[in-house]
């Protein structure tokens, strides 16, 4: 690698690849970039003409193509092992960009996390503002009535509060339960519906397809 121009071409390629792999764990991304660097250096060791470097890079595909072959497999594999809902959700988002099943699983997960999270927050609010938080039954003048799980900063809404302190354990129980099941649902869905393709291929025809696959 003497020619600064070809060196620059290689560096640009690897930097772009690195950027495309940012969703992966730090050490995995570094490992991949170093392996590809070694490949390029080995390929071009006997006289690194600009043509040879271009041909080597072309054979690898664009950084985007190469990264996408790594990324999907890696993210979804990690989602099955992770204990972090955030990692799981991020992988589901990636899956959602790839298939219809992914979109459905992602929407259900977001809904589950939102409702579960809201219930937990509600239980916390009950502990902090007991008088303003609760399940209220409001009777309207025309005789109809409605239930509202609400937090009102200031005067409590008109009507009868039904649960009292029970809001706290019930909210916690169902909230945490829902968060847990949403998380399990995500990992279960990936295991059940995601078929890793033996051959990740952004190019060429995808003939071995499956529902949920690309």
């Amino acid at each position, binding site marked *: 690698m003497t020619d600064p121009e070809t060196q620059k071409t290689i560096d640009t390629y690897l930097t772009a690849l690195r950027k495309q792999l940012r969703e992966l764990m730090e050490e995995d991304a570094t490992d991949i970039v170093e392996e590809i660097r070694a490949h390029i*250096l080995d390929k071009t060791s006997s006289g690194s003409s600009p043509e040879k470097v271009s041909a080597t890079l072309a054979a690898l595909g664009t950084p985007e193509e190469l990264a996408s*072959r790594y990324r999907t497999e890696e993210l979804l594999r990690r989602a099955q092992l992770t204990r972090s809902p955030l990692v799981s959700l991020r992988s589901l988002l990636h899956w959602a960009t790839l298939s219809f099943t992914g979109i459905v699983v992602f929407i259900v997960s977001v809904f589950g996390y939102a409702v579960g999270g809201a219930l937990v927050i509600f239980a916390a609010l009950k502990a902090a503002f007991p008088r303003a938080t609760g399940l209220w039954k409001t009777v309207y003048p025309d005789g109809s009535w409605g239930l509202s799980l609400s937090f009102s900063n200031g005067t409590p809404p008109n009507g009868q509060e039904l649960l009292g302190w029970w809001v706290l354990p019930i909210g916690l129980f169902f909230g945490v339960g829902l968060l847990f099941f949403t998380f399990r649902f995500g990992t279960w869905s990936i295991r059940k519906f995601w078929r890793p393709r033996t051959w990740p291929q952004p190019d*060429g025809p995808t003939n071995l397809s499956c529902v949920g696959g690309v």
Partner: protein
Amino acid sequence: MKDTTAVAVPESAEKWEIQLRKGSLELAILASLWDGTLYGLEILRHLEDSSDLVVVEGTVYPLLSRLRSLGLVTSEWVESDSGHPRKYYRLTAAGRQRAREMARVWAQFSASMTSLLAPLKKELRKENP
């Protein structure tokens, strides 16, 4: 969602061939590591030298990464004379087992296909004597 690992019929023989090559690459890589450790480019060269598999370089590395995450191969960085380290791959016990199973299936499948294709063979011989 029903699990339909349906195989769509490729529109042309050429596409079918691409599919076939791609499907067999996993076994080809495991087989090339049967006798020892190799780094990525050595695997590629081995595949090109000892078969007419046309291997796209940008697909071998992600596949190796997947084989590693499945525990079929392990990898290790080794310093080299060339001035940069190289990542060497080695089959694990599970990888050996997998290669053996795949090779067995392959042999059976290939034998069945060969006998099924016997009538066509005569045809081909007639066409190009």
